[in-house]
């Protein structure tokens, strides 16, 4: 009976809007099966976590009140008074961290499988933009509870913007909503976090997903070189979609486990006239940059060390985004491709700097 109603609805929509393209996509889309197939799921997990962020974010919005005198208090209210408020906040914080983690894993898996190459250059670029915006989400969201850690992390983070020549200072004032980190900064970050970023993020995410649907899954070199009869595929629907869903359920359980057993501390309320406490540090995904800047001396030649570091990371980010357009000739004697070596170096650098950041 239900099935009957369902098919009636579908056929009536089909009659009016012609669902052939959707049907074709569902029927014909297939996913290559090989020993690196597991990486195909990383993007999906990231997408799932974004949906979790969206939903929990909307829920938090119902009680959160931005403002110097209300932000900290409202978050405390959420985690202590509101039923399951602690759960929603913990899930939001944990999911944010996992999202960034999976986005990084997704990015590096795409990098090392060379999936960014022609014709998927724009998928890579939109993906990179999404990652940058995820980091911006993390940075702006970090301040919202208005606690000590967040206050100083934001002071440092926005001050770093200020070291960029010419545009740095005006940009810093624009971000902070004034000379210093104050309630005005909080209002701005709130607006950025709940309105501006979601709008831009959703746009690039839609593009990213559209590109993937248009071009299908990337096939790695070794798979492409297989004889036709040896190439194994699974249908996207329902096989891949169901596997994807199963993984989402697993990730959801991990998320709930983390939220239950490792709650996110609220810490002390920010005080603009108190010394920075020991152990000020940014979120882990900024740690490698933070730690690298720490190692730089005050001056390198005649340039401020900080400025050099910031410029370096800025340029490195741009180069990384433009990777699909970088061609380095591969000599036959080389065991690894130069870009792969650079990628390995980048991963090692990030890991070592992150670990040092927590140890030192």
């Amino acid at each position, binding site marked *: 009976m239900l099935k009957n109603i369902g098919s009636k609805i579908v056929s009536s929509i089909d009659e009016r809007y012609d669902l052939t393209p959707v049907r074709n996509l569902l029927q014909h889309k297939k996913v290559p099966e090989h020993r690196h197939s597991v990486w195909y799921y990383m993007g999906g997990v990231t997408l799932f976590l974004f949906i979790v962020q969206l939903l929990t974010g909307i829920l938090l919005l119902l009680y959160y009140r931005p403002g110097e005198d209300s932000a900290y208090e409202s978050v405390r209210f959420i985690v202590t008074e509101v039923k399951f408020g602690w759960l929603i906040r913990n899930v939001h914080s944990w999911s944010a961290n996992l999202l960034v983690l999976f986005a990084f894993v997704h990015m590096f898996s795409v990098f090392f499988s060379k999936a960014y190459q022609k014709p998927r250059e724009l998928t890579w670029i939109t993906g990179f933009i999404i990652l940058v915006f995820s980091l911006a989400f993390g940075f702006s969201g970090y301040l919202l509870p208005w606690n000590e850690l967040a206050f*100083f992390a934001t*002071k*440092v983070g926005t*001050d*770093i913007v200020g070291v960029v020549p010419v545009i740095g200072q*005006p940009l810093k*004032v*624009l971000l*902070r*909503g*004034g*000379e*210093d980190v104050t309630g*005005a900064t909080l209002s701005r970050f709130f607006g950025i976090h709940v309105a501006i970023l979601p709008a831009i993020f959703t746009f690039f995410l839609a593009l990213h997903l559209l590109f993937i649907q248009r071009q299908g899954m990337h096939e790695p070199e070794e798979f492409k070189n297989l004889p036709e009869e040896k190439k194994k595929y699974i249908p996207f629907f329902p096989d891949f979609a169901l596997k994807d869903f199963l993984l989402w359920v697993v990730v959801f359980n991990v998320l709930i486990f983390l939220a239950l057993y490792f709650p996110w501390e609220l810490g002390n309320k920010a005080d*603009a*006239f*108190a*010394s*920075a*406490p*020991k*152990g*000020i540090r940014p979120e882990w995904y900024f740690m490698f940059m933070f730690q690298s*800047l*720490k190692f*730089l*001396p*005050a*001056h390198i030649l005649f340039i*401020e*060390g*900080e400025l050099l570091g910031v410029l370096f990371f800025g340029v490195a980010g741009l180069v990384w985004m433009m990777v699909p357009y970088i061609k380095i000739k591969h000599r036959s004697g080389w065991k690894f491709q130069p870009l792969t070596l650079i990628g390995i170096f980048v991963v090692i650098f990030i890991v070592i700097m992150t670990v040092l950041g927590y140890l030192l």
Partner: protein
Amino acid sequence: MKINRRKFLNSILGIGGIGGILSIFYPIVSYLIPPKMAEPKVNSVKAGSTSDFAANSYKIVKFGRKPVILIKTVDNQYKALSASCTHLDCIVQYKSDTKQIWCACHNGIYDLNGRNISGPPPRPLEQYDVKIVKDEIVITKMG
């Protein structure tokens, strides 16, 4: 060069269009730049009495909108310096064990005269004058 009707209309429309877009974006961009707040002109602040301030300790004092670190050294001298680390704007603290000024954010160290002696800070901390007026500590701007 002969300008025909179509070209003429296109350029009028083009200039008008650009003008239209600018007239939308100019107010938006101006709106985003925070207005300059009148900075309260503060030349001196009172920072409590000398009696309830132990030697070898410090406190952060509001000097207008800026934080100032006030230190009472082991030999009962007073030092007042800007508390904003010249590196990345964190607020510094006094370490009673090493008798130095320390920034917890990036491990920047200054001596008691505000000179940056170790770590990433590129400049010394700005100094303030400290006077004792009838047992009360008064911090004033130098110069």
